[in-house]
């Protein structure tokens, strides 16, 4: 497979996963705002922005003006609108969908017609829903459209695309992005939510349920632990559960599995370091115990996972996509 094609498949997949995650993040937080909460709106959306990795530069605040007046908070409506529709902000959902479609368009022949039709259909649907003025009704239609659209794409991907190298590259993109965004989310909650000592139970409970629902994990969690929520159990479930598809461990396992399949397909001699790093991360999560993680510094633990994800991304590029001519000829 051409490296360029692999690159486009990888980003198509990552962008779609990101769009879905961001859509659910916004949807759940919009819902949480309906209840009375100790968390101020500004604080809550600052948290959302941290979770999409874009605390700066998303039009959260106005620019400080010339007189040195401090930046002004734009308000929930404008911010949510930007997060959904503003194509100049790379973290926005619309920018992700446009990015995914543009990547897929470059390799139209490498994916199935059904995949293309789903993605193109989603693109046109979003273009229709994008309006100049923010409105709640619009959002109520927009967010489910994104989530459903991505699910449909993943469904036809699994049923219409041959499960060869290209399909594995799509899986790499999906699960690396998922591991990354879940870990980032847990990092934010570790620092912002789970630290509060003087908590009022009802409000804390809502926030915790919110976290699980952002990860589509509430039902799955209850089946294992009942609705008996605790910091430790939630973190254990989202970080270390081996079976739940939106846990970090599951994502890393799937990522490792896809990378292994690609290595077999390409028979590359240069994948050793990549497999070592991915395998180490898989083993770290596979053998971890939540008590150990909490006894040490959980934030540092999560940051370490993020670093390794970044390292895996760089190595994928170095092995399969942007390797130097000398390195490739040396083997």
């Amino acid at each position, binding site marked *: *497979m*051409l*490296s*360029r094609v692999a690159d486009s498949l990888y980003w198509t997949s990552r962008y779609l996963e990101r769009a879905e995650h961001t859509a659910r993040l916004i949807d759940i937080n919009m819902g949480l705002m309906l209840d009375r909460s100790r968390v101020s709106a500004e604080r809550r959306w600052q948290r959302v922005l941290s979770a999409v990795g874009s605390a700066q530069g998303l039009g959260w605040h106005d620019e400080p003006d010339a007189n040195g007046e401090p930046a002004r908070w734009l308000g929930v409506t404008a911010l949510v609108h930007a997060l959904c529709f503003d194509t100049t902000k790379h973290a926005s959902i619309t920018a992700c969908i446009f990015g995914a479609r543009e990547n897929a368009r*470059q390799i139209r022949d490498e994916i199935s017609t059904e995949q293309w039709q789903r993605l193109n259909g989603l693109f046109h649907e979003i273009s229709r829903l994008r309006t100049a003025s923010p409105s709640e009704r619009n959002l109520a239609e927009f967010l489910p459209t994104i989530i459903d659209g991505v699910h449909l794409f993943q469904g036809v991907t699994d049923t219409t695309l041959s499960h060869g190298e290209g399909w594995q590259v799509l899986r790499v993109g999906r699960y690396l992005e998922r591991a990354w965004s879940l870990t980032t989310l847990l990092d934010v909650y570790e620092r912002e939510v789970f630290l509060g000592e003087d908590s009022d139970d009802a409000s804390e409970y809502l926030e915790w349920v919110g976290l699980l629902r952002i990860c589509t994990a509430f039902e799955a969690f209850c089946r294992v632990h009942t609705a008996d929520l605790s910091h430790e159990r939630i973190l254990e479930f989202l970080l270390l559960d081996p079976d739940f598809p939106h846990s970090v461990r599951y994502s890393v396992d799937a990522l490792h599995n896809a990378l292994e399949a690609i290595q077999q*397909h*390409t028979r590359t001699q240069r994948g050793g370091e990549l497999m070592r790093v991915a395998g180490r991360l898989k083993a770290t999560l596979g053998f971890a115990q939540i008590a150990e993680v909490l006894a040490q510094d959980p934030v540092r633990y999560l940051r370490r996972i993020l670093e390794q994800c970044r390292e895996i991304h760089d190595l994928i590029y170095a092995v399969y*996509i942007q390797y130097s*001519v000398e390195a490739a000829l040396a083997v």
Partner: protein
Amino acid sequence: MTTTPLRGAQDHPLLRDYFMDTAFDEMFDGAGAIRPHYQALFHELTTLPPEEIRRRKQSADASFLMQGITFTVYGRDEGTERIFPYDLIPRLVTGEEWDRIERGLTQRITALNLFLHDVYNDQKILAQGVVPREVVYSCQQFRRQMRGLRVPRNVYVAIAGTDLLRLESGEFVVLEDNLRVPSGVSYMLTNRRIMKRTLPSLFRDYGVRPIDHYPQALLATLRSLAPEGRPEPTIVVLTPGVYNSAYFEHTWLARQMGVELVEGRDLVIHDNLVYMRTTAGLKRVDVIYRRVDDDFIDPLAFRGDSILGVAGLFNAYRAGNVTLANAFGTGIADDKALYAYVPAIIKYYLDEDPILNNVETYLLTDAKQRSHVKENLEKLVVKAVGESGGYGMLVGPQSSSAERDEFKRKIDADPRNYIAQPTLLFSRAPCLLEDGSIGPRHVDLRPYILFGDKVTIVPGGLTRVALRQGSLVVNSSQGGGSKDTWVLGA
């Protein structure tokens, strides 16, 4: 010009708007009688119920849509992908007519390849004054980098598409040669696939000569041009990318041949060898069917601002490590001013008279011809020598005086850049109109010629149609369409 509605045996309601004048009609002879080879087609069309024709048209439409057979129009807004308009009534060419066309095209491509080899090596034809040096050296497509360079089998033009017209007399003449990156062959082949499904029994009864082996023939041609010592060459199609108007065709050809479709950024040059970058590492490339113009193919050798090309490709080519089809610099042989010399070129190299004649052409560098052209602009067609696709041209009879004045200024400013030809009343073929009736529309014919270890011309080609009544412009970028071409007889 007087036009007369048809009278007599063809008083069929479907033909209510059919008319004839001095232009050659593909279906009717001068007396209004159906030409023998059109009779079965005519019978089928007039006996099929109108709703059945409509149904078949709809199902053919759906096939085109489903296959995503589209092209891009430049200079308009985004989202300019369109379905290539096509016509359901095939254009018929008799076996006898075709055999002559085939001989003529073979002769022409052979002579033009000899010419290119000569011009880039010994230049005998220039020394002997058969073609003036200034015509060659003033051509923007002349590549001095090609001087003295050996190309495999001395084949410069491996893939050509030559535009033919049929004049009032019924004679086929050459309007222009496309020797750089001719496009449209995918439409020829997809038209055929859809027509076989639309009029299957008629197709069978006619004994139409097959064209479906074109992709294999193209692959064999490219393979025959591989550098020496590469018995199992890796062949790729090089595309400028998804924004190119012919991108559909590039992907289609790559798929049909079973080779990779690459962009410039997929290729790297190392030690004058060409590789493509794959997930399994670098893979050596031997033959590139390139659909990128000379200017953009190597920023080191040609235009430095090109981002479509591959830096160093020309050096690898010069070292003989990779074959490009077509070679660089073939554009001098399809320059519209050089065109006037092609009959002399054929005579010079092959000592034969041209089997297919040229259209009369005025060279505007000649003062006498130039003033004649300027005085008669409303009767002539003026074309920019380096342009194609119907861009940069003036159709005299359909122009305004402001447009004519503009062209006079352009001609005076740069006479080498333009040629003029008489406005040709070329042939019309029956087409299915919007209202379901049948009317005559102007058509041309572009056969596709392959030149490797032998010359292969699949019988037929792309018949392009000027779908607007009275229009003489058949280019897809200017509102033209196409129809299937059936070459009859064994």
